[in-house]
């Protein structure tokens, strides 16, 4: 019965549809069909529009397809606030800019110093260095590179040009007071007093073209810098990406770092991907080929992927526990020595830091110039620590606060835990980084875990700042006339062997006086796609892409 009724209904409705169709109206089915067609049309609108646009000189600001295909993409762990080589103190900016702007001196992968835009240099007298410049080099604008550009670059940094903002890189050039153009390809750099490491410090400065800078002004230069490097800037979308393309007229770079000639890669694209999870996911998904700074706990997983590997470099930053020598309890040398024996480095390095760190006997990393390899390796000796504490009147143990910044909290807790065996009760207190640094500079903290980077790998980049009596970051209130004198002598010693000897003596003095203990350096880990050839992580964190190649995408 019901079946029959339904059939009738259907028949009726079909009849109605037919009638409406005959009358020129829309049936429901037709309506749906038309609707669908309209939807497809709307959806295809952009496509249709693009065809339309192609007819009338289509606007396009996208990158050349060859550039996109042939570029290496790098996920950075920090954003880039400026691209002006002279206006930053950021390693990330330096790593990006170094691909666009060459310097007088560069470092190879083993951290040896080689001439780049300079051909050679000699010390004329202790305060005057003569640099011979490479000829036939052109900036990205096509203008030739000459002595005036070097003078302009260095004068801008030391503040010798009026009307320009003070460069935060001034302190990296220490006692440089002036420059002189001798001829088109020769420059003299004048220092106040002897400065034996001038050539080493020049790796941190990239040469800027004077004429271009004066044409466009400082602000525009920070957005669109020009240099004589292997890549030139195509576009910079702040927060999004920095696109560089191969500079075809490149002179080839330092001859000591083969191969010479224009870069292999079509271009390099840097993307700020500060979140580690996003950076690594982008590497896995093939959205970037190099991911800077892989967290240690992710390193093994990334290394196990078929499409990526981990490239490791020894870091140049030393973490250490600092002790305040100006007040109790650490004004007593015996208490400081007890701290040296209180911590067991082995489990912290191997289990806690997953073997991605290395305990050091002192503040210098082994790669550093003048590293004293004769100092004893750090080890725990709780009996000795307890005895020293007892001698110093802390027979029933010592209670202290261990200050650190948030990023170091877990490792500070591990250190505090390890110290318990020696009768030291350390309570970890976390302070925001800037505030902690301020407190440390005022010597208001007794015991603290902090770190100091030294990518110059020269002791002059770390020892005077931390350990001179008037050092800007002498957190320890450490005063040693002997160390001050040795530091001054090392600063003036033009003979490398003499300098080395001075620094060895300083390291021994510091080992004796113990303003710091429990030193370690973390490895720097980079995630690298297997498509990338000839890329290796470097201790200085630079990302030179001139010699890197990319296998075609499958």
């Amino acid at each position, binding site marked *: 019965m019901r079946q029959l009724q339904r059939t009738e209904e259907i028949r009726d409705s079909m009849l109605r549809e037919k009638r409406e169709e005959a009358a020129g109206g829309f049936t429901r089915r037709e309506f749906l069909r038309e609707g669908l067609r309209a939807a497809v049309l709307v959806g295809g609108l952009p496509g249709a529009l*693009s065809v339309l646009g192609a007819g009338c000189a289509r606007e396009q600001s996208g990158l050349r397809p060859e550039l996109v295909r042939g570029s290496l993409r790098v996920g950075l762990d920090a954003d880039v606030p400026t691209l002006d080589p002279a206006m930053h*103190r950021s390693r990330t900016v330096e790593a990006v800019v170094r691909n666009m702007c060459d310097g007088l001196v560069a470092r190879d992968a083993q951290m040896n110093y080689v001439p780049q835009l300079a051909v050679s240099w000699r010390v004329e007298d202790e305060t005057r260095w003569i640099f011979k410049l490479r000829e036939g080099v052109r900036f990205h604008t096509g203008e030739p590179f000459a002595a005036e550009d070097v003078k302009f670059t260095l004068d801008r940094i030391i503040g010798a040009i009026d009307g320009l903002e003070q460069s935060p890189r001034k302190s990296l050039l220490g006692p440089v007071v002036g420059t002189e153009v001798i001829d088109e390809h020769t420059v003299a750099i004048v220092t106040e007093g002897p400065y034996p490491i001038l050539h080493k410090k020049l790796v941190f400065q990239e040469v800027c073209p004077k004429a271009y800078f004066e044409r466009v002004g400082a602000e525009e230069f920070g957005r669109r810098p020009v240099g004589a490097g292997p890549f030139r800037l195509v576009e910079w979308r*702040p927060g999004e990406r920095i696109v560089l393309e191969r500079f075809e007229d490149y002179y080839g770079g330092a001859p000591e770092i083969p191969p010479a000639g224009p870069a292999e890669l079509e271009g390099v694209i840097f993307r700020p991907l500060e*979140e580690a999870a996003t950076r690594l996911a982008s590497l896995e998904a093939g959205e970037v080929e190099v991911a800077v700074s892989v967290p240690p706990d992710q390193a093994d997983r990334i290394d196990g992927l078929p499409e990526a590997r981990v490239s490791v470099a020894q870091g140049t930053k030393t973490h250490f526990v600092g002790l305040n020598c100006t007040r109790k309890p650490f004004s007593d040398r015996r208490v400081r020595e007890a701290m040296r024996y209180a911590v067991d480095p082995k489990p912290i390095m191997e289990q806690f830091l997953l073997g991605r760190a290395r305990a050091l006997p002192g503040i210098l990393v082994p790669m550093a110039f003048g590293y004293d390899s004769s100092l004893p390796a750090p080890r725990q000796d709780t009996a000795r620590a307890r005895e020293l504490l007892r001698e110093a009147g802390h027979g029933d143990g010592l209670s202290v606060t261990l200050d650190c910044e948030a990023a170091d909290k877990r490792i500070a807790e591990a250190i505090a835990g390890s110290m318990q065996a020696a009768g030291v009760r350390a309570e970890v207190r976390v302070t925001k980084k800037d505030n902690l640094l301020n407190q440390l500079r005022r010597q208001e903290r007794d015991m603290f875990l902090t770190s100091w980077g030294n990518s110059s790998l020269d002791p002059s980049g770390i020892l005077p700042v931390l350990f001179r009596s008037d050092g800007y970051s002498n957190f320890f209130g450490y005063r040693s006339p002997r160390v001050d004198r040795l530091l001054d002598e090392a600063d003036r010693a033009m003979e490398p062997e003499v300098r080395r000897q001075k620094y060895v003596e300083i390291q021994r003095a510091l080992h004796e006086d113990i303003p710091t203990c429990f030193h370690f350096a973390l490895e720097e880990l980079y995630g690298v796609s297997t498509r990338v050839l000839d890329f290796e992580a470097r201790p200085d964190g630079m990302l030179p892409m001139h010699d890197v190649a990319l296998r075609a995408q499958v």
Partner: protein
Amino acid sequence: MWGRFVTRRLIQLIPVLLGVSFIVFFTMHLTPGDPIEHMLGQAGHVTQEQIEELRGHYGLDRPLVVQYGLFVGNAARGDFGLSYSHHGRAVASVVRERLPATLELTLFAFVMALVFAIPAGVIASLRPQGVFDRGATIGALLGISMPGFWLGIVLMIVFGLQRNWLPISGRIDLAVVPPARTGLYTLDALLSGNGAAFWSALKHMVLPGLAMAAPMAAMVMRMVRSSMIGVLAQDYVQFARAKGLPERTVVGKHALRNALIPTVNIVALQTGLLLSGNMIIETVFQYPGLGKLAVDAIGAADYPLVQAVVLIYAVSYVLLNVGADALHAVLDPRVRVA
């Protein structure tokens, strides 16, 4: 009467903004953090004079109250000062660079949330406690309770990594950037007739947009559902049915229109929350918008930038609510009388 309504609401904006500026200014300046320390980094031998000079340059050496007065006075004229973390560039220019990205993503998430929420709410209300309703309730519960950063990472792993359907980060494919006009990539792509750029920009917004839209969709869905259930029980709905109107007209026209009136306010509130959600989502997806800018600025103790961004958020939140009230008045004449 309309003019008076809107003017009154806009005048109310002034004390709100003063309050917000006061709170932002003093929380920023009183929380630990030293912008000069950030600027110098590990600058080695920096003299105390150099630090004082920088403090003077950025006006940080004056008493806080004076700094606040200057900030309010300048902000009223649209001058938000110089950003510490952007190489001393004007805050307004930094913000202008990032605003379109956020605007675009927020609009996208807004549309997505409504497209999901309104039909789902209506369907759920037709059979309360039915299968669909229960499913939608569980979905809404998840949408509200899942933290944005977690949902974002899960979406990224599933659709970006395992399935490789959608891009993980960024705003657009490198090869197809449209010429800049509005800064909204989808709109620019349409204006320049670049279909590939349009799809690429859209594709890049799907995952962050979903993660942002989830809590809003959940709230709006629940709101639509409950007010639909209320409306469907009204006499005039019964009357419409009795009149012999098709159920679709009864639900879609008579019931839904009335049920949407209370929803408008929830939508406005939730859109305000979308804005706050984008700080987290933009950070997770590395989407170069205002939210990520704000997070970075807070990390760098970049007071002027944080103040400007927070003020923008506050203004949009208040304006959204004014807009919702106005819309409410349009939809429901009773409000106008009151």
